[in-house]
């Protein structure tokens, strides 16, 4: 079991300087997580189609796209909550030190889930159990996963709650979730997710139910706490502007296919895929005069659809787009799957 002295680590990393520093964009020989050709089927539907990406150690990665893009499905697969035989899985998920975990059994997942891989859910008020106090929900994993005694778990729980910015932590232990505001509930979720010092933290739209000022607090907190622990983080987001602020790398998905992937600064500064460009065009900035929204439409998940799933809505679609699926290829510092990319 890993033991990290949080106090020493806090002193070592000077914050918030560390926030501005991006991790180096060098290909690692030994990344934390490698997803290769991940496909997920549910009956006749192909929900994820050959998804490939890499997560570097200590980096943050954003999964972006509209609802139905498969972002949350990827997150649930990475934490072993979507498994065979409920869904059909194919491809490789290499988690450092644990090998290919795509076909792992529940025994193996019990050693990973909640320990090395943890998750923050979108709706904290639904993820916390209303019948138990904050203290019991944060101490249970500490005692069961970390093997702490009751007293040690209590002390650690207070420490964790303080580190996520809950003041008056000892008395909060006896509070029930409904007595906390949405922002405070999300902080408790973060404390629980970080309690086992995970290597990989999955954050599924952690702030979409919160006010902007609280959103800034929560995103900063996740970044600070994961960096302090040298953990990697995958954000599931739909806000491209927010992704440009908090993710080192991004993967843009549509209908379960990777459209464009690469360093956020490269991809979002000058998107090459028409879908990324269209999404970027929907983001409102304070001086936006005209919006050019994409036409309505939803992707087809029928496994027999041969071509690019975005083709029916794509303003740059060619004849072959609907018939032949474009491969994910390297282009100008990123990977892109498109027959007719922007110049």
């Amino acid at each position, binding site marked *: 079991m890993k033991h990290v002295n949080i106090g020493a680590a806090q002193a070592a990393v000077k914050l918030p300087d560390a926030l501005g520093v991006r991790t180096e964009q060098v290909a690692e020989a030994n990344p934390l997580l490698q997803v290769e050709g991940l496909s997920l089927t549910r009956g006749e539907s192909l929900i994820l189609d050959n998804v490939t990406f890499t997560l570097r150690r200590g980096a943050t990665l954003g999964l972006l796209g509209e609802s139905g893009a498969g972002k949350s499905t990827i997150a649930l697969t990475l934490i072993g909550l979507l498994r065979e035989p409920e869904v059909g899985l194919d491809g490789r998920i290499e988690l450092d030190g644990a090998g290919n975990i795509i076909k792992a059994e529940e025994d193996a997942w019990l050693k990973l889930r909640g320990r090395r891989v943890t998750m923050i859910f979108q709706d904290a008020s639904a993820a916390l159990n209303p019948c138990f106090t904050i203290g019991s929900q944060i101490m249970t994993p500490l005692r069961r996963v970390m093997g702490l005694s009751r007293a040690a778990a209590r002390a650690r729980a207070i420490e964790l709650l303080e580190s996520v910015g809950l003041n008056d932590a000892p008395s909060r232990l006896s509070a029930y979730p409904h007595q906390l505001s949405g922002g405070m509930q999300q902080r408790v979720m973060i404390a629980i997710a970080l309690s086992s010092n995970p290597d990989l933290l999955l954050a599924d739209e952690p702030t979409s139910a919160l006010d902007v000022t609280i959103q800034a607090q929560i995103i900063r907190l996740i970044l600070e706490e994961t960096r302090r622990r040298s953990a990697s983080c995958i954000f599931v987001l739909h806000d*491209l502007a927010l992704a440009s*602020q908090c993710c080192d790398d991004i993967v843009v998905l549509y209908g379960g296919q990777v459209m464009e992937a690469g360093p956020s600064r490269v991809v979002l500064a000058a998107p090459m895929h028409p879908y990324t460009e269209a999404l970027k065009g929907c983001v409102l900035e304070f001086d936006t005069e005209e919006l050019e929204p994409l036409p309505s439409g939803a992707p087809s998940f029928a496994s027999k659809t041969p071509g690019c799933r975005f083709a029916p809505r794509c303003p740059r679609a060619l004849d072959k787009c609907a018939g032949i699926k474009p491969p994910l290829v390297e282009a100008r510092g990123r990977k892109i799957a498109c027959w007719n990319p922007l110049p």
Partner: protein
Amino acid sequence: MNQAPIFRLLDVQKAYDIKARSSALFSRASKRLRALDGVRLSLEPGESLAIVGESGSGKTTLLRVLLGLTQPTDGRALFREKDIASLEGAERDRFCREVAMIYQDARGSLNPRMSVLELVAEPLDHHKLCAKSERRDRVAALLSRVGLAPEMMSRYVSALSGGQLRRVAIARALASEPSVLVADEAVSGLDVSTQAQILKLLRDLQREMGLSLLFITHDLGVAAYLCDRIAVMYLGRVVETGSTREVLKTPAHPYTRALLNASPRFFAPISDPLPGEVPSPIDLPPGCRFAGRCTRAQTDCHENEPTLAPAGPTRLFACLHPLSAA
């Protein structure tokens, strides 16, 4: 067209008495929660106004006062210069027809047992706006106005996507031929692409039909796109108001600045977030309500409460130490 303001709020207060949890046995003390505390606003014909603020700032209470769903404890809420609470008979009917509401939760606001045709036709029938024979055509016209095919008429709420639902809700609001649209977070919870479609639709409708628009939102980008004027609320008070462009370009109130900084922007570093959360509106301390979270607060901020003072032809703000740019 009547040129008097459509809505006028004169120092509207709305306070709720709540039972205090007290340690003293048998104590019957109650406390006052001031949801709105002296709000002064007006909405002119054809104008679009955004009300912006965090949760707990009183946006929804303001809306309830405007729709006559709750009465202010003090001050006056006027619709075309008449007290909303005192409207009766024909005037009340006219108010109901002229003021159309688009609710935040479109799915919850539409009856799942009614088809789209019945939902959109209900205001037509209620206000007797067209003969039974024209009903279908009117609904088809309204649906096409919001970008839906007439085939949608036979569908039920459960068969519609989030974006389609919002469009049905807008068509239903337009059915009574209103002069003002009131929308409460009408685009929250949608994908950015759908949000962009609905925002464009709302702006086109507002401009082409000369509607007034009162849009409640927490997203400054949405406010900037849709509305000419903005009112920033904090704990039941308007802290800054003026033309959206001016206020967002050179905010005078530190709270407006903080909201701007917290909004995600491409490649901007994540700002130092505003500390803490909106405090409880029960038994507020004296002085400026924002002082506890304000980086510019000085001792006098904790003693004197700033009032909303003019700082230009249309610009008002309430701050003792405003940001200099204004």
